[in-house]
């Protein structure tokens, strides 16, 4: 029996085409067995009614988060351990990430997890922290991102971004896409005014920083739980409007 298998294999070593086909079948099985149920069986990713798509400003803020590579040092995935829930807030649910193209769960925590950062600090804290992380935590090893306060946000790209997102399945309506720039400007102005009112720099409404702050303040807030981190108050959260 064994002898036959190895003799057969010796034959196979003379047939590159058959060999290649067998390899291809072999490598496809595992991936398909894991992927297909994840797409077809709805129970694998239970929907959460309160989870909504990002506002236009938050969506481009998320793109800035991607551009700066924040995911290299910060996870957005609180595991269901007591130590993590104590430290960061309630654990992440599959249904919270259904509009995340791409997912940003991360694989390394050089800095803390950010899943429930939304509403934890005032807008001004985030502006100061991005400008100079040492101003909010003297020992921080995070690089400064001061250019976010200087560089203008490109509002013009927003409709195209939302259209591409709607093509991959995020339910933005045509009306929302048409109103996206105005919507983003309204939210940006609200955040910039809040920052100025708290004693921060004025005139940030067209800067990149407001988009990033909008995204950070939204993170993990669609599911309000009793485990909300201390210090969160309603006024700290940028109010995402019309898209909802």
């Amino acid at each position, binding site marked *: 029996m064994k002898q036959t298998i*190895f003799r057969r*294999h010796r034959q196979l070593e*003379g047939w*590159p085409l058959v*060999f*290649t086909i067998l*390899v*291809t079948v*072999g*490598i*496809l099985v*595992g*991936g398909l*067995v*894991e*992927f297909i149920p994840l*797409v077809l069986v709805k129970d*694998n*990713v239970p929907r959460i009614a309160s989870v909504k798509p990002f506002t236009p400003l938050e969506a481009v803020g998320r793109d800035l988060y*991607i*551009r*700066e*590579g924040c*995911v*290299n*040092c910060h996870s957005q*995935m609180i*595991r*269901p*351990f007591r*130590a*993590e829930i*104590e*430290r960061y807030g309630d654990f*992440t*649910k*599959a249904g919270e*990430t*259904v509009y*995340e*193209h*791409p*997912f940003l769960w*991360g*694989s*390394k*925590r050089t*800095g803390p997890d950010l899943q429930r950062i939304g509403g934890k600090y005032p807008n001004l804290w985030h502006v100061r922290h991005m400008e100079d*992380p040492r101003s909010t935590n003297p*020992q921080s*090893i995070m*690089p*400064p991102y001061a250019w976010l306060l200087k560089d203008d946000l490109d509002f013009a*790209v927003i409709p195209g971004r939302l*259209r*591409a*997102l709607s*093509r*991959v*399945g995020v339910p933005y309506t045509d009306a929302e896409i048409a109103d996206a720039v105005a919507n983003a400007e309204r939210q940006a102005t609200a955040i910039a005014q809040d920052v100025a009112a708290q004693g921060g720099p004025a005139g940030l409404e067209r800067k990149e920083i407001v988009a990033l702050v909008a995204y950070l303040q939204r993170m993990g807030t669609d599911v309000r739980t009793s485990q909300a981190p201390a210090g969160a108050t309603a006024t700290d959260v940028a109010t995402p409007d019309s898209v909802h």
Partner: protein
Amino acid sequence: METPASPTPAQTARRAPAQLDVFRYDDGIVRMFVIATVTWGIVGMLVGLLIAVQMPFWKANLGPYLTFGRLRPLHTNAVIFAFAGNAIFAAIYYSTQRLCKARMFSDVMSRVHFWGWQAIIVAAAITLPLGLTTSKEYAELEWPIDLAITVVWVVFAVNFFWTLYKRREPHMYVALWFYIATIITVAVLHVGNSLAIPASLFKSYPVYAGVQDALVQWWYGHNAVAFFLTTPFLGLMYYFLPKAAERPVFSYRLSIIHFWSLVFIYIWAGPHHLNYTALPEWAATLGMVFSVMLWMPSWGGMINGLFTLRGAWYKLRDSVVLRMFVIGITFYGMATFEGPLLSVKSVNALSHYTDWTVAHVHAGALGWNGFIIFGMIYWLVPRLWRTELWSPRLANWHFWLGTLGILVYIIPMYVAGVTQGLMWRAFDDAGRLVYPDFMETVTQIVPLYWVRVVGGSMYFTGVLLAAVNLTMSIRNAPKLLPDPAVAMPLSPAGRHGGDGGHAALAD
């Protein structure tokens, strides 16, 4: 004619049986890939060194373009796809021709492959610092570059498979099995994970979201390790180690068993990167179980490699090539034991998100991939350029600096990982976190980040010594390097004759 073009099988069949079949190997393309390997190795590791300094010393983050977040993907892409990638291609182009007794199918395709791949690397080195990234690990390049990768890979595949088709040696040696698995699987992974809808020239969104995107990404990410950093290197080991040791491979049957089990099982292991996340538990458990199963086929490769040296261990004294291979295979064995260990949920609960992972991948990358690559290059360069190695002493220095450098890199990272993991989960008697301030767990390990910089610098210095040594060797090479010619008796039995035993590994 002095240099006959390689005849097609049809032409050879028409000739009289007594005639000799003369053909030449294309070694020029191998020389190009070898030079590219060393060059990009230096670039990739230099970026690695910079980001290693940025961890404990934030002032090393320069402006928007050279910050950790943008450079880390550049480092990983450069060392995986540029350094290891070019090395794989050098190995495949050198050994495939010899194992098939045939020149590569098309010199033009070989050169399109080479220059296309270098252009892709340059595009990565420009776009990543600009912040043009998909953020998916080891698949950060945006969609136009992804398309270019697909085209170049198809050129490579056609060139390779057509060479297989017109081979003169009927039997495919084990190295070729691993190359086949590599070429097929990397194509499937790259296309599957890169499916995206463009929003503009350098911005796209993946078609998958959340949990599905995570699963597809780590199906890709884990198997990039499997089919870019493992299977081609095992193929390489199966060719170059017996060559350098002048011994046949230890076990033919073991190579069959571990090849098929490795190829089948590896694909399932991806979800172990997502233990305890929002991925459904059945998927994570499946990933863990298959990861533990992977231990055996992985060690099959290690055993077949190390046992090939039975009766030849004394050769290590004089051969830096064999010493590097042995260290490389040993690190492969350690990393493929550690991998299954890390995939076990209770271990992963501690190790995940910490520097333990960083230590693990660098044991693999610096130990296994790095040392196998330089072992191969020290063996190849004198043969490809028909010259002596300029300084065996310097190569010896490279070996020791590299070996110690790996240890000085990974040991502090293990300590940092375990320390921080334990601090994150420490509770006091009253049930409160002992270190509620995340910052405390960082300042604790910052000194270890400095030690890692020392280890990385040692390894990098070794690579610089290799570059000097190889440059000086190549400068002593003859001006003209004609492709080596091979003459084979035309077998009347044709393509399907001959024994082609597994031990036969002649040039």
